[in-house]
């Protein structure tokens, strides 16, 4: 994915809408400036996306897919359960640190874009919870598992990362890896074995 990167007109527009929203907020983001940033004529924008809302949602979905792919591939490359947790949490934080404007646009400013933007966020977090549940089958022990555990863990990691992004401290996100991996391991296999 090319959020913020170069490539096709479509990819440039996705990058431009992210930059514009990160800078000015969703409401103030203007179509003409988005097109100017992307170097794409407004007529082509209209043809590709129709309006700002559709373009922004496409950018958020692209960010979500790319983030998820990055985390999933790091997890699958890990040698064991514990390493996969460190790899997955590290990849999540690293991705957001590497894409601060997309993270700020989609996870902070973009929440004001309406219910569809929230749905993209919610679906993404549910996929992370599903991934975590799949991983847990490889966990060494599962003391008293309950259905809310992955939801609680994913929500906790999300809120912690969000706080850094909101405070414009995205570059410090990778520092959270040891604490958040421990948080996840403890919730998954118990505090005594974590």
């Amino acid at each position: 994915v090319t959020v913020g990167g170069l490539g096709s007109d479509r990819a440039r527009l996705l990058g431009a809408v992210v930059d514009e929203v990160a800078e000015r907020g969703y409401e103030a983001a203007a179509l003409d400036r988005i097109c100017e940033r992307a170097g794409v004529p407004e007529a082509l924008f209209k043809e590709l996306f129709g309006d700002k809302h559709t373009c922004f949602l496409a950018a958020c979905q692209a960010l979500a897919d790319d983030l998820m792919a990055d985390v999933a591939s790091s997890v699958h490359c890990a040698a064991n359960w514990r390493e996969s947790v460190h790899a997955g949490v590290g990849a999540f934080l690293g991705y957001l640190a590497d894409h601060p404007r997309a993270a700020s646009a989609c996870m902070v400013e973009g929440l004001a874009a309406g219910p569809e933007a929230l749905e993209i966020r919610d679906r993404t977090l549910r996929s992370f919870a599903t991934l975590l549940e799949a991983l847990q089958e490889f966990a060494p022990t599962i003391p008293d598992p309950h259905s809310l555990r992955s939801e609680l863990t994913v929500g906790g990691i999300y809120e912690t990362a969000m706080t850094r992004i909101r405070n414009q401290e995205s570059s410090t996100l990778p520092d959270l890896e040891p604490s958040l991996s421990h948080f996840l391991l403890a919730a998954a296999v118990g505090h005594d074995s974590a």
Partner: protein
Amino acid sequence: VEQLPTGRHGLDRAFVVANQRDRILDALAQEVAEKGYRAVTVSDVIARAGVSSKTFYEFFRGKADCFLATYDAAVATLMGHVDVVYQRMPDPTPEQTRAVLGTMLEVFAAEPALARMCLVEVAAAGPEAMQRYVAAVDGFIRLLEPLYRVRARRLGAESSEPDPVQGRALVGGIAWVIYGRIVAGETKRLPELLPQLLQFLFAPFLGDEEAARIAFTQPADSRARARTRGGSASAQRARVPSERKNRRSRRTATA
């Protein structure tokens, strides 16, 4: 909120004003819960509140301003209920934590519009509203401080310094689960989640076994209370906006 009769009702002007303002806050909360923040208009709110447009703009600059006032009133209502728990149970124990979280879930269950505004619609209402949400989360993270002392005692550790990352992850995880139930239309069933949420919250402090034991054991006094009030949340039913009940304590002033 009932609309006051018009004309010469002999009611004190200050009372009428407070009543109008409350009615607007209540109307906004209901409208937002039904339609979502973005779709609500000031006309919807004044029609529902039964006030004139002029009256609305005497109190508020617009929809966003009115939302912030309603949000503050909702948090104040919630905190009012939490404060009652603190007065009843002043000692920082796991039982106090259970009572606080249990009360919050019951208030949300009894007032779905309040719950929806506090956790869901706040995201749609823009950055200033989100700051209010963040402040509320920060307030709940501080409520965990006594648990760090419990852990230090248990482990014989010198330091009971709170871990801010862990605190945010714990509170954030619980907020996320509550959010998910509200979005799924299961707000009324939130109190059922209390034991699982407590187990998650207590485990880092009390250890896994003790956390599970305490979380799933109902305290004797709450069983007695449940019998006397039929286990119903309506006994402590909250009204959505009521700043007149603004009873923030030292502990919760920042929330």
